[in-house]
């Protein structure tokens, strides 16, 4: 009688391409990224950094109600996006705006959603950072954790039925892997043999819960085998490693019609959101260490610059350009009209049923009777 031990003793190794200083590790086998893709990836990471810094401040100034940053996870965001095709469907958790950025979402479109103005594709109905864009194949973010995972299995099922040359990519954090939906989604995807890539951004913290209190297993990667899913652990702060693993995962998922689990190790440098102050539960020097010594953006920059594809002048020019563009986008977004009151009642159903028609009419009457109590800058 032999009980299998609760741990295999050895931790699953982590795939890396670049060392901490941005030099390719001797002997590492990886697909080369050409200059165009590398520069685009890098500039996307810088853009995301700047977007996060400025929009976070915008919330602090009271101009938007909420924001959450992806600081420290820029490599996962952009490198995974770069490895996908535009037909691949993305179901995000909420810390993956970089994927949308890669696909062509503009700074203005981001700002519009955060300000909830008339031009927001979500028509002002969701919180800031809950982006969604059908034309970019990026499903609207829904706050509850891990609900997107079984939905991703469903999307993959749909792609499999249509025999599309595309896969589904869905993201979650370390905390999300504790949800029941994670378990069932992985199980379903394996049983149904559908092309979905589950990318877990293991960033060490679920608000104030560290991973030592989240699970007892060797991280997330070991769970894949429990469901019969091929898995890999990757250095999430190494853009090339992330790019390579997602590329291979995508090919495998589509050609073999199977799910893949990728655990990308990283660190959540920012607070959970603007409603959180993480210095309350973690050491400031821990945050500083990951912000500087282990910064994925500067690590990739060293490699890109080392190849002669980027210079310091490019850096400062690019940064100031993006900053200017974003400030302008924010000004425009802030000034733009809010969505009309009519939008309160549309899209609940395909067509409004009698009770909603009545409620809309009743609201309209109340507004007419008491115009002084109603903001003058919101259209009807």
């Amino acid at each position, binding site marked *: 009688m032999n009980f299998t031990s609760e741990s295999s003793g050895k931790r699953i190794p982590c795939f890396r391409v670049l060392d901490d200083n941005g030099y390719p590790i001797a002997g590492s086998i990886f697909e080369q990224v050409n200059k165009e893709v590398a520069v685009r990836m890098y500039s996307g990471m810088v853009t995301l950094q700047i977007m996060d810094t400025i929009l976070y401040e915008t919330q602090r100034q009271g101009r938007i109600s909420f924001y959450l940053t992806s600081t420290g996870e820029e490599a996962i965001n952009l490198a995974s996006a770069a490895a996908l095709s535009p037909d691949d*469907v993305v*179901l995000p958790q909420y810390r993956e705006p970089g994927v949308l950025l890669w696909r062509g979402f503009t700074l203005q479109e981001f700002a519009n959603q955060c300000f909830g103005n008339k031009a*927001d*594709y*979500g*028509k002002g*109905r*969701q919180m800031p950072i*809950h982006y*969604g*864009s*059908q034309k970019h194949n990026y*499903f*609207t973010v*829904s706050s*509850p954790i891990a*609900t*997107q*995972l*079984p*939905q*991703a*299995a*469903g*999307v993959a*099922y*749909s*792609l*499999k*039925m249509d025999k599309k040359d595309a896969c589904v990519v869905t993201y979650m954090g370390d905390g999300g892997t504790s949800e*029941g*939906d994670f*378990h*069932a*989604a992985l*199980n*379903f995807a394996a*049983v*149904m043999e559908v092309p979905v890539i589950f990318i877990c951004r293991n960033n060490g913290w679920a608000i104030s819960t560290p991973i030592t209190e989240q699970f007892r297993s060797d991280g997330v990667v070991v769970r894949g085998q429990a469901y019969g899913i091929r898995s890999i652990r990757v250095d999430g702060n190494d853009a090339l490693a992330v790019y390579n693993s997602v590329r291979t995962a995508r090919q495998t998922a589509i050609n073999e019609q199977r799910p893949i689990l990728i655990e990308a190790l990283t660190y959540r440098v920012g607070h959970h959101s603007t409603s959180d102050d993480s210095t309350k539960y973690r050491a400031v020097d821990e945050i500083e260490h990951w912000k500087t010594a282990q910064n994925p953006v500067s690590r990739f920059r060293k490699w890109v610059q080392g190849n002669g594809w980027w210079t310091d002048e490019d850096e400062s020019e690019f940064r100031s350009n993006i900053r200017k563009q974003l400030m302008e986008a924010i000004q425009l977004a802030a000034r733009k009209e809010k969505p009309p009151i009519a939008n309160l009642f*549309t*899209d*609940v*159903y*395909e067509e409004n*049923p*009698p*009770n909603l028609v009545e409620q809309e009419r009743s609201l309209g009457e109340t507004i007419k009777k008491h115009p002084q109590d109603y903001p003058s800058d919101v259209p009807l």
Partner: protein
Amino acid sequence: MAAMLHTIGVASPVASGGVFPDHQSNKFAVSSLHSLPMIRSEARSNLSSLHESYRAGKLIAKAVATKGENAAASGASKPGHELLLFEALREGLEEEMERDPRVCVIGEDVGHYGGSYKVTKGLAPKFGDLRVLDTPIAENSFTGMGIGAAMTGLRPVIEGMNMGFLLLAFNQISDNCGMLHYTSGGQFTIPAVIRGPGGVGRQLGAEHSQRLESYFQSIPGIQLVACSTPYNAKGLMKAAIRSENPVVLFEHVLLYNLKERIPDEEYVLNLEEAEMVRPGEHVTILTYSRMRYHVMQAVKTLVNKGYDPEVIDIRSLKPFDLYTIGNSVKKTHRVLIVEECMRTGGIGASLTAAINENFHDYLDAQIICLSSQDVPTPYAGTLEEWTVVQPPQIVAAVEQLCQ
């Protein structure tokens, strides 16, 4: 659990146990309108439903054919074909799957097992394992899966083996199914149908006797309908599949073996319309699902006592068909609601509020709502029988209303 569900196999929807001396066991003793003096044939013509092609111009005379009439009318000359309610659901589902390749079925044991109530029997061999998908046991997950598939263009029919299990899927149903069309700014639609048997059965135990319509009715963005006859089961199934909104179709465990003759021609019903079961003058009785049969049983007694109740099967639980209901209230001025939900927070509670708000001036008496008690459904047969509204209570309530 599957074994327990099997015992339900063939059961009569009306309580047996000696309460109704003239009740025939194992049959559906529904009043046949041919024996009643008053039949309003214009009842249907008021409604603008273009979908209802059933015997144009004629009133739907019977909710369910009784055995006696079936025997006499089994000749080939009668139009339409006879089938049981679960077969009607399957027929509707099969027709829609043939018509639109995007329609698929997701649920536990729906494939080669044919579904625990045989609604999907024969579909997997016909349409393949991918279109009639057997899932592992995780309601929240296969409901979420259905939502993801719907957002990508499929039209899934998600089956809960028993409605009660869909409580595990509540998060996906309320936060995603109901909301994502709205929160995405209209970019994504979720044309899913969520269906399954619910209601108080025959000694299924508390967890398998849930009435989820009361829990779901607040969720914005979804539509709720309840079928009660083979005719409306097929019509509502087809309508629900064709609807762009997410629709929850409530079936009842004890009604699956109802037999009726339905048209051969294709028909689709209106999801938001109530069904006039029996027009009358004295009192409006609003009901749905299995309670319709208890009401019609009570109506037999009431007619003998000289009353003329109007019976409406509301069918659409969200939104209410206040047009049909309102016209009835304006005519009779008295309302009795008979439901299987629990007293607190049920469909009857919302309906009472809606009628009071909209038709207060037309009421001559307070609305009476007969519901189940606020208790978990007990297992013991005698106890269980008395948690649902029985015909004598309905008769007494009408007498009280018409004083």
